[in-house]
Each structure stands twice: as C-alpha cells, then as structure tokens.
C-alpha cells in the first residue's frame, strides 16, 4: 500500500517534468500517466490504432533476429511491421534532416548503434521516453544501463537491448593455444612474427577497428591524458580537436606505425572476417556477435576462437529507440517492449549468442556447442571495458591524418 502510494507520489511529482520533456509529437497517449503497471492498458489500444510500425536495423548481421521478433510481434498484437536495413550514419543524418525540416520521421523504432546517443539526443531526434522505466519488460533491466549509457545520462530513452564486445578473433587451426596474444604487446609481437596475417579493421569502416584503437589508447594512456580520453562530457567536435592536436596520443600513433608494417588494414568488420575465412589472415579485430553470425552462415571456420587483451577491450551495445518524430510511437514502444521480453531475449541468447542486458539471463544459458565460439569466461566479462564512442571515432579520424595518409 505504501509502496503504491510512494509510486503514485513519485509519478505525480515526476509527471510535469516528463510531460514537458516528451518530444513525441505524434503520441496520443499522455506519457506522464503511463506506468509499468498500466502500460499495456494504455499503449496497446493506441498502438493498434496506429496499426503499423516502421523499424530500422543498422546491424547487417541482425536481420534474422528481427525477423523472429517481428513474427512474434505481428502474431501477438496484429500490428504490421515495416522493416528496413539501414546504414547507421546515414539513417542518423536522415532523422536529423527530417527533424530539422519539421517533418515526420520515416522510422518509428530504430535499432541504432550504441555510439549514436550523443548525436541523436543533442539533435533532438531521440524520442524522449523513459522506456526503461515504463515498459513492463524492462523490469529486470540492468540498472547500470537503465539511466546511463557510456557515461551519459539518457533517462531511459536509449536502452541497449543487446550487448556486444569487441575482441581479437583467430583461427585456432593456425594459431596455437600458447601463441594467442594476451596483451597489445603480445599482439604486435605475434604480428611481426607472422607478417600480413593480422587484420586490423579500418576504424572509419567498422566498430571493431575503432573499438580496437580506443582500447589501445585506454591501455596506453595514463594520468591526465587518460582522463581526457574518458571524459564523456566532451562533444564529438571537442574530441576530434583533441585527438588531432594532442601529444598524448603519440604512443598510440607509434604503435600503429609499427603495427601497420606487419599487419593488414581491412576494409570493414566483415572484410576482416572474410579474409580470415579465406585463410589469408589468421587473426583480426572483430565483434563477438558478428563472429557468431558468420559461423552460423558458414562464412567462418569452426576453428575460429575469440579472446580479449589485457588490460581490456571495449564492450558496447546497441539501443532500440523511439524516434521523436515517429508517426507510430505507441506501436514502436510496444515493439521495443517485446524485444526486451525474457522469452525473446532468451531466444536471442540461445540462437544468436547475443548477450542480454537482462539481469535474469546470463551466458550459462547458452548451449555449450555455441559457447565455444564466444569469449571464454576467463576473459569475459573481466576484460570488458566501457567505451566513449565519439572519442573512438575521433581517434579513428586522427589515425587517418596522422598515420595512414602519410
């Protein structure tokens, strides 16, 4: 009784603030009145009235995951889902352009890269909904992610629905167990011993590359330099400026200069994997979840394995958000809610080895046949560190200017 009272009190206090904050221009529902408890009651009718929902997916390897979700969603609610694969950066720019022109967004529910938060929120295209607080299926959501993402407060509007991890992947048929590098120093030594067999993704062309350069910087920089590196209050422009001009990064550039003499720069996350599959490379920078997709699609050998380097490599996640200018915001919320349901998250974990931000699911539920392709427990989650994507992007651009173009 007292708990509901407090809850009521809380919502009534928070309501004006939420109402003022909400930027969902096409939402018929008064968000301030929506709680986890009455969510379905209020939102389902609104969503059915909208009748359809458009979703964007930025991750090429996630197509079949969303197919599964859409199937469940359409069966459950009878609301049609229009699905599009998109290019992340381009879709972001599209939302911004449409928003600035004062038009409706072409998308309602957007599965977006975890690094997009600063851009999407600062430009006002992110639907300002406390999803993690009002969607019923977020009741077991990791509290660390519920209000913050990569050091920024999002108030629940930018929930990660999938966690992923950058890693070093190798073909164990060619790399012996005792040769597997354990640190960045090991890595360069291995690369020099096996010239042109290590693939480093170009940061501008893939997150496994920008994750790698950020991890390297985290491992190399200390003191004030490191503080700057992890200061998530900086904007992308500030990060770019710093990365272009600072001397802090000299050791990083030196590392890359040395590495580039013996390693291969690849054209993207998939290119790295493809070359490993072609046995042209035996080791490379990868995303854990993409590796899984490629193994399932027989685009990687069964002997492929993953590891993390000391003192850590960045982990990330991708968010499912409502666009501020969404035409069908209620249906979008409903779709996101279903994406976080325990059943679906469990399916995703089992079938795609996609890690979940739900606290009641963990990797032990993955079947052992699949688990061998994932990061071993010895390194994960111990060596997973947080990322500041705008800084990672800035480092990638600076790398282009400082090392690659010379």
């Amino acid at each position, binding site marked *: 009784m007292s708990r509901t009272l407090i809850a009521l009190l809380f919502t009534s206090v928070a309501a004006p603030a939420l109402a003022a904050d909400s930027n969902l221009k096409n939402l018929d529902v008064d968000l301030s009145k929506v709680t986890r408890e009455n969510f379905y009651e209020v939102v389902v009718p609104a969503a059915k009235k909208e009748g359809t929902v458009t979703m964007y997916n930025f991750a090429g390897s996630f197509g079949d995951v969303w197919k599964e979700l859409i199937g469940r969603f359409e069966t459950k609610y009878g609301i049609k889902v229009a699905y599009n694969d998109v*290019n992340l*950066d*381009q879709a*972001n*720019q599209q939302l*911004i352009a449409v928003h600035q022109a004062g038009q409706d967004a072409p998308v309602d529910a957007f599965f977006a890269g975890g690094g997009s938060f600063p*851009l999407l929120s600062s430009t006002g295209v992110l639907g300002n909904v406390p999803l993690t607080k009002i969607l019923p299926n977020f009741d077991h959501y990791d509290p660390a992610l519920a209000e913050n993402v990569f050091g920024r407060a999002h108030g629940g509007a930018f929930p990660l629905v999938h966690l992923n991890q950058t890693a070093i992947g190798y073909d164990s048929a060619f790399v012996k167990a005792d040769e597997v590098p354990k640190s960045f120093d090991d890595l360069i030594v291995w690369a020099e011993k096996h010239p042109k067999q290590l693939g480093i993704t*170009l940061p*501008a*062309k893939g997150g496994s590359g920008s994750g790698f350069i950020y991890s390297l910087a985290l491992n190399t920089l200390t003191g004030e330099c490191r503080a700057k590196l992890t200061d998530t209050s900086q904007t992308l422009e500030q990060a770019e400026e710093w990365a272009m001009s600072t001397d802090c990064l000299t050791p990083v550039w030196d590392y890359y200069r040395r590495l580039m003499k013996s390693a291969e*720069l*690849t*054209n*993207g996350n998939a*290119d790295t994997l*493809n*070359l490993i*599959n*072609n*046995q*042209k490379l035996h080791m490379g920078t990868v995303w854990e979840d993409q590796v899984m997709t490629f193994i399932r699609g027989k685009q990687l050998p069964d002997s492929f394995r993953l590891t993390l380097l000391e003192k850590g490599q960045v982990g990330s996640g991708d968010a499912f958000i409502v666009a501020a200018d969404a035409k069908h915001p209620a249906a979008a919320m409903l779709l996101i809610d279903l994406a976080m349901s325990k059943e679906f998250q469990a399916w995703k974990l089992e079938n795609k080895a996609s890690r979940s931000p739900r606290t009641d699911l963990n990797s032990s539920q993955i079947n052992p046949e699949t688990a061998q392709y994932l990061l071993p427990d010895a390194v994960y989650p111990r060596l997973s560190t947080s990322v500041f994507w705008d800084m990672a992007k800035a480092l990638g651009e600076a790398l*282009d*200017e400082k090392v*690659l*173009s*010379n």
Partner: protein
Amino acid sequence: MTALFNDRRLQLLLLLAPGVGYLLFFFGTPLFQALRESLVTDQGDFTLMWYQRAFSRPSMVRGLTTSLYYGLAPVFVSLALSVPLSVLIRQSFIGRKLFNGLYKLPLAVPSLIAALAVIILAEQGGFLDRVLAHVGLSLPKIVRDDAGLGVIFTSAWKQVPFMTLIITSAFAAIPEDLRLAARAFGASRLQTFLRVEVPLAMPGISAAVLLTFIGSMGSYAIPDLVGPPSARPLSVLMVEGFKNGKFHEVYAMGMILSAFAIAVLIAYYTLTHRIGPQAVTGDER
C-alpha cells in the same frame, strides 16, 4: 492567344522549358546550394575554411590525388583494351555476331555487381587465388590493394564495352576507301591505323575517354567496396562526411570534384579545337 502562340520566341521558350527548366531546378539549384554551403561557416559567415581544409589535410589531399588516379588509370586500362578490341571485332571470325552481342553485357551489369564479381573472383583467398594455390602459386593482392588495382579493374570492366562500342562505331564511320587509299599510298597496316584511322576516330575516342573518366572519378560504390581501406577518393570521403553530417566539408569536396570534371571538359574542347574542327568529320554522318 493564337498570335501569342505563334510568336517564335515564346514557342522556343515553351519547347525548351521542360528539359532545361527541369535541369535548372533539380540540377542547378542543388549545385548552387552546394556551392553556397561550401563557402559559409555553420553560422552562415563567408569562409574558405572548408576548401583550405580540403587542400591541407593529408587525408583530403590524398583523396584529391586518389580521385584523379581512379579517374585516369581505368581510362588508360580501358583504352588499351578497347582500341585493340574494336580493331579485332571488325575482323570476321567464327562467332563474331555472338561475340558482338555478348561483349556488351557489362553495359547492363550494375557497378555494384561488377564490384561483387571482382571480389569473388580476385580477392585474397578468392577463386583465382584458390586455383593458383593448387599449382603452388599465389595471386598478388588486387582487391583492396594499396595501388587500387581492384578499383581500376572494376571500373575498366564496366567501361571497356562502352568504350569499345563508341570506338568501333567511330572506326566504322571512316570510309573504307580512306583505309585503302592509305594502303595504296604505301602505308602499312599499322601506319594506316596510326596515321589515318586513329586521327579520324579521335573525336569518338576522346568523348569516350572523357565520359569514362568522369564516371569513374565520381563513382562511390566501386572504390568503397573494392578500394583500399586507406587512400579513399573524394567520392568516398564525401559520402563518409555526408553520413557524419559534415555538410560544408562535403560540399567543398563536391565543388572540387566538379571543378576537376569541368577542367577536363574544357581541356577536351580546347584540344579538339586545336586539332581542328575538321577532325570532327571523323564521326560526322
């Protein structure tokens, strides 16, 4: 009303309006927009900063040279293949008709598919590499290689039929008697080719060169897919910038790319006019 309609100038304007008007609006406006945006800051003040940046940042400077390289190199490769090819397909040989139909196939193949084909065929560990591995050889890196061979081959693959088509018809338009005359006056086959046929086919050849140069210089998909990860041409940098919302920079690059294209066009006109308008009779009908 009828009188108005019969006014020849009005008639002309009405006739020109659809085509020229369309291009003015949907081509002129964005171009002008891009030009204007490339010259102002975020706050709208005039600046040359974006151009300065394009000409001073190492990656951009490299983008400039790479664009030129991706424009020129495929043209040379295609030319080196198309001219002999168009000479050969004038000969009669078994299956000439079939070949004549088939060689144009790449004209209908989208460049994305061309890129896919090159990847499948020639990438590291791709088909050719595997075949060669069986005889103990290995294919040099020609896809996403630093020299951009993959881009050059893919562009050339797309261009050769187009170029051959134009060059063949330029050659075909040369009266047979001129060839015979050259031979009768003591020119060998090679001399006839170099001194009579090539000069007369020049307008066709140079137009083909120009179009393919511009086509491959401005193309995005091919260098993005089969080009080396670093050393990206302006077109790729433009799209990257566009995706990241760096519009002023993108417009400045676009203007530079356009300036290149226009410079080449002007050079072409000056050149053909210096050779003399009579050279144009080669493809006059």
